[in-house]
């Protein structure tokens, strides 16, 4: 099992629904968010266009955050989901320093918090909250080890990229061009 997400950047309108859905579903404290949207202006005048990327923890295959965690609170679960055990975390900030995507933050209670791929929903066969609410249906979630899954087929068919592959983390959030 290898969970991954694919996001069609051509369909994304940057509405921020995924951000709000995540905050609601996961009770994210005010002022924080586990996912966010980057907006870029691309192209040369007069052919300018907006480029949106819905970003979150990349649930990397090579996890610098898990490697640097001194207590083992940061760990990889089945399906490659990277999670933090709250009562093992000492809040040292090593994983925040280690993440090239800035996907982690200190929860006001002290421990480090991050995207969980909504594993409580995934366990029940549902999509993560961000994927399920997307009004343009630009996000896809699934198992890469299953060649028949929609995400496997999409990644085979369409050109895609990941963020900062040069950081050597093997990110598992794919963006469809």
């Amino acid at each position, binding site marked *: 099992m290898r969970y991954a997400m694919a996001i069609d950047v051509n369909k994304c309108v*940057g509405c*921020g629904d995924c*951000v709000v859905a995540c*905050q609601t579903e996961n009770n994210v404290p005010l*002022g*924080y*968010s586990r996912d*966010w*949207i*980057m*907006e*870029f*202006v*691309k192209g040369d005048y007069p052919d300018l266009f*907006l*480029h949106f990327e819905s970003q979150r923890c990349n649930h990397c295959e090579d996890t*610098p955050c898990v*490697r*640097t*965690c*001194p*207590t*083992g*609170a940061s760990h990889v679960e089945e399906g490659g989901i990277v999670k933090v055990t709250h*009562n*093992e*975390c*000492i*809040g*040292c*900030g*090593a994983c*925040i*320093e*280690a*993440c*090239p*995507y*800035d996907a982690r*933050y*200190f929860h006001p*209670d*002290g*421990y*480090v918090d991050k995207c969980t791929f909504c594993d409580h929903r995934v366990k029940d066969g549902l999509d993560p909250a961000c994927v399920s609410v997307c009004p343009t249906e630009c996000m896809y979630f699934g198992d890469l080890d299953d060649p028949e899954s929609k995400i496997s087929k999409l990644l085979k068919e369409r050109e895609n990229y990941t*963020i*900062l592959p*040069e*950081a*050597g*983390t093997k990110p598992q959030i794919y963006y469809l061009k």
Partner: protein
Amino acid sequence: MEKLLATDRNIDYLYPHVDVWGFPISSYLFLGGLAAGILLFAALYYLLGKEKDMPFTVKIGPLFAFPIIALGLFLLVFDLHHKLYVWQLFMTARAVSPMSWGAWTLVIVSFFSLLWPLSFIDSIDDYLIKRGWSKMTKVTEYLIKLEHKWLIPHFIIIMFRKYRKFLAFVMLIYSIILGIYTGILLSAFNAHPLWNNPILGPLFLTSGVSTGSAFVMWLSNNKKERLLMSAIDMSLIAIELFFIVHMFMGMEAGAEVYKQAAGLFLGGEFTAVFWGVFVGLGLILPFTLEALELRGFHIPIVVPALLILAGGLIFRIIMVQAGQMSEYPMFP
């Protein structure tokens, strides 16, 4: 391509760059290096059989190591965001995590830094009298009595003395590990290209040992000891300069992110403070003063010593801050 906004993400320590570690961490790195240097010299000169020639280095200096480590540990715990769970560090040992190595190393080093001066506790009077602080001996005598009575009975201290060679051997190894670890801690972060270079471990070790020698040279009351420490310190500064030059050479020969990281020091915003304050006032000036001292000029030893100590602290503050500013560009 220009970034417009990142929806709903105004976490101040993540944007515009990660800023999670500040003064407590840089001071801890400094204190750890300093303690490592003090203990390294004590163990080394004891094993070399120079106990009588270098009384301060071997016997008195290490007295300061434990309080220094304790202060560093306090700062470390103070910096944690989930402080009550600090014991989780000692529920596991993770070979891939430098911080886990550090936690266990600190336990072992603080244990030895406590045992070592205890085995020499009776020599402290000698030092105080020679320094002209004989009034203090009453206090220490009282403390020693109190200690023998309540904390550590005398026969245990006699046992420490018996195994001093073993203590020295372990202390020598662990002080080196502690010194290197303060650098490795930073170099394990791939996300910060400035830190992510293998010279940082040896560089921090050399800098820590140099601050240790400055500390001994400052407080020692023995002229010979001071001059020897001064000479050692000069060679350490030379090695440090060599490492610094090679660190930037390596980065300049690296990928774009490493060039950008080096750029912070080569024309970027840390140029003046790094080369002027750290290299100029913290390395080259004390080196020159020490050289003059060895040539027979009279220079108050406190000047180069304090310059080196301050330089060591400033170096770590710069490296921690600049490292967090060197990141992979999210907005190409």
